[in-house]
């Protein structure tokens, strides 16, 4: 019986695992190269910089888009006060925002505070007919980012985890930085990785990019010098007896590999990618010196270094109370950060290969709650909301779909979350009809079959 036959490599969504421990003699007989190759999967080369890997991965198609920046407006931004203004609907609907401004694309008007975005409407398209009808944060967040309704015993991964799964692994991905980043905190209400498991969770930076230094958790540690990092590492290697004794155990291989990657970031130069203070001051100011503005800048730096998926978890849009007070504060910050990001990506020739998508889990009620305690508030609204998409093969200067006179219902070209997600997959060269392996062994389609009762308006062909 061959040694290989004695060793079962179990493939699952987390990559290969040795189900049996290699005995020391078997490992020696086969040669450590063989053992490592078996453990490390398809290439037989130690993928030092692999953040995740799975040899069962289907090949991706040629793609227009290489990277995605998702601006997640957590809480649900008011579509009437951003990209779908309704000045004719009266003050019970539009409140103080009665004069939307024209953009550089004729016929497209947006909220009057979005002055910078108005100058570059030819670079993005607006989807004004997003709809799913769900008014609860958790379910809607899950639905907008996985394309699925919860409840069928499978917990699906969010778009970012799927992109990390397909595009964030060697040989395609060689970066030292994790391929899926969230600035700065994970969403927390649902597990972004779903059944793909923790390897495909986003790396959360923590810290605040608007502060210097931007203390990226685990990578940037003020107060610990490089020399001390190195001497600590040496001390650890000397003292770690169990590791020395159990050298050929798969668990030891795993921790060693994880540690090498970690030290590449701690001691190497790639951790610098997170540092927006390397940018000229005027660039930093252009984006705005806010957490959101600087997050947009860091996202651009990540894209330049080949990171595949960056989520900016942008909180504060759940404006049940005093919506207009919040909007006056928030919209200029949002406008400045997002417009600078899109313009900067375009100036650097990166917009063609980078998708930027921007929305929340739903819109907000078109009719304003003027009464106390809301004092001009808007509540959750799933029947209609807006999304902005740019780059990576999405055309600019278009509007997809429309809502009715008051922004209450989609009257033209409904776009469901699955349609937007499937369109992004298509641009990324990931076949929306492809399947991935569930840890329980069966194959799961990325996007549900339309005939299985899933509502769909089809791919966004008109802007692709």
């Amino acid at each position, binding site marked *: 019986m061959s040694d290989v036959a004695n060793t079962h490599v179990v493939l699952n969504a987390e990559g290969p695992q040795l189900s049996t421990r290699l005995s020391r003699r078997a490992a020696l007989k086969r040669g450590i190269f063989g053992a490592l190759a078996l453990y490390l999967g398809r290439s037989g080369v130690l993928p030092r910089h692999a953040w995740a890997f799975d040899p069962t991965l289907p090949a991706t198609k040629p793609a227009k888009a290489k990277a995605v920046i998702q601006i997640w407006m957590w809480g649900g931004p008011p579509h009437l006060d951003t990209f779908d203004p309704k000045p004719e609907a009266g003050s019970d609907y539009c409140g103080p925002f009665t004069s939307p401004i024209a953009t550089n694309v004729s016929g497209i008007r947006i909220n009057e505070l979005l002055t910078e975005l108005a100058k570059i409407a030819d670079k993005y398209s607006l989807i004004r007919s997003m709809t799913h009808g769900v008014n609860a944060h958790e379910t809607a967040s899950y639905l907008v980012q996985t394309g699925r309704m919860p409840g069928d015993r499978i917990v699906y991964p969010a778009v970012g985890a799927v992109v990390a799964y397909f595009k964030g692994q060697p040989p395609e991905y060689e970066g030292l930085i994790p391929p899926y980043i969230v600035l700065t905190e994970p969403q927390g*209400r649902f597990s972004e990785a779903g059944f793909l498991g923790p390897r495909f969770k986003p790396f959360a930076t923590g810290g605040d990019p608007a502060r210097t230094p931007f203390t990226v958790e685990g990578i940037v540690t003020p107060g610990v010098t490089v020399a001390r990092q190195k001497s600590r590492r040496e001390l650890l290697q000397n003292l770690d007896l169990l590791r020395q004794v159990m050298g050929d155990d798969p668990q030891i291989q795993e921790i060693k590999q994880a540690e090498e990657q970690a030290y590449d970031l701690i001691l190497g130069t790639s951790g610098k990618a997170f540092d927006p203070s390397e940018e000229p001051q005027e660039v930093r100011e252009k984006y705005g010196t806010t957490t959101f503005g600087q997050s947009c800048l860091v996202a651009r730096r990540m894209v330049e270094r080949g990171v595949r998926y960056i989520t900016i978890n942008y909180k504060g849009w759940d404006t049940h109370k005093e919506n207009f007070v919040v909007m006056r504060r928030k919209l200029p910050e949002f406008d400045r950060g997002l417009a600078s990001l899109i313009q900067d990506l375009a100036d650097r020739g990166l917009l063609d290969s980078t998708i930027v998508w921007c929305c929340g889990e739903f819109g907000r009620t078109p009719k304003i709650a003027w009464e106390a305690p809301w004092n001009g508030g808007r509540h959750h609204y799933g029947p209609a909301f807006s999304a902005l998409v740019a780059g990576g093969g999405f055309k600019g200067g278009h509007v997809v779909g429309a809502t009715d006179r008051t922004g209450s219902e989609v009257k033209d070209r409904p776009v469901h979350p699955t349609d937007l997600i499937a369109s992004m997959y298509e641009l990324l060269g990931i076949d929306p009809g492809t399947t991935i392996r569930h840890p329980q062994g069966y194959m799961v389609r990325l996007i549900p079959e339309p005939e299985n009762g899933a509502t769909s308006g089809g791919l966004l062909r008109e802007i692709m």
Partner: protein
Amino acid sequence: MRNPVPIGFLLAALTVTATFAAIPPEPVEPFDSNQEFSVRNRIDELLAARWKEQGITPALICSDAVFLRRVYLDLIGTLPTESEARKFLEDRDPRKRERLIDELLNRPEYADYWTMRWGDVLRIKAEFPINLWPNAVQAYNRWLYSSLARNKPYDQFVRELLTSSGSNFRVGPVNFYRATQDRSPKGIAQVVALTFMGVRTDQWPREKLEGMAAFFSQISFKPTMEWKEEIVSWDPYAGSAATQQAPPREAMFPDGVKIQLPADRDPRQVFADWLISPKNPWFAKNAVNRIWYWLFGRGIIHEPDDIRDDNPAVAPEVLSYLESELVRSGWDLKHIYRLICNSATYQLSCISRSQNPQASIYFAYYPMRRLDAEVLIDAICQITGTSEEYWSMVPEPYTIIPQGERAIRLGDASITSAFLELFGRPPRDVGLVSERTNRMTASQRLHLLNSSHILRKIEEGPGLEWARTSYANPRQTVTRLYLTILSRYPTEKEWQILKQTTAKSSRLSREMVVDLIWALMNSTEFLYRH
């Protein structure tokens, strides 16, 4: 060439492999004792026969220090303190291991830890996608904790879960039926099969699942005037209003026996009677196999929630023995823990002495596993004298967990914690054991090596202030740190390494102490069960 293999690394790996390619002639300090395996109970007898048949040499019995740490982590999810470690290591009683097992089984942390483990299986979670709501989570956890603390007989434990009625806020076990994403009779049948039979129903013929679902077709979930309160009860007409159909009168047990549902009896009772019978082929087997899995990281049938004919047990005779012991003892779960932990098999070292790759699936050495997320953060907090902030933003008003609460006691997978998320706490979405992932990732490694979260605990944690300020007696400081963090005394070899590091001075500096704490807390020995 892309990603060149670092030659130095491979040479190092080769050296290690070459050194230990043969059976180590001597026990490896400090992990092995110098004791060979010898049969202590029936489990050992049965497994030893398997090893003989397979040509497997078992590992040596582990050292006292390894046993101490292992059994604390495995039975109560808690690291021994410095004084507990010292006391056990200095104890000369030859029966001290047995005594320690009994002691731990009676500690309150036993119930804490197993409430957490059972909470995974029972999917206890306030929010999405399981929506128990916080009040119900508390009621459920209280019931679970007291059942485990009192060592409620397992048959009674399951009967209560399956047949209770009442408010989800008052009667904890009624939440069993609410803790599922799909509350249809079929959805419930799937959850019952998974939880108490270890069986996945995905491949079942339709007729079989429907036959079992009939037992759960008369459960009613009725809202009250209290926000998010629900009364779970037997209602013979439940569901018929929604489906416009009379509830099924015939049901089928998973073993194929059909039965007419009596009109005057809750069908849940009828099912429970069948399930918890000593003759049931799944019930006791699933229970003991799961406990085995919890203690060894691998089931005798593996995975433990995938029991089926074409997934055979590696040692069915061990399972049968444990099943009969569970029944004979009056469904006493602690009896099973006691049998396993007192076996020589459980007490084997993690250093394999067999060249046979089958050694691991026959449990011929103890398998290393990374500490669970909750156990790891609790251990870090215990050593450093620090605590974590746990809370949940949903639903309003927020759930704020009191300062100093341990992670193993959280009892709700909806509580927000970046650390627990990062280290693979199970989401409790479906209740499969594979939801918990203890594989080490690069992001986890970064966090432990270099995050401000962990470094602050090491540099400022009040629990270690004594060490950071005691310079005069290095030997004493080092010894105490080893006992606190690794639950053992430093070996002479380690002492030599440290002496070389600190050779330039006879006193320790704060920086040296911090670095030593950091190194010990980042060692494989600390981060893994072994």
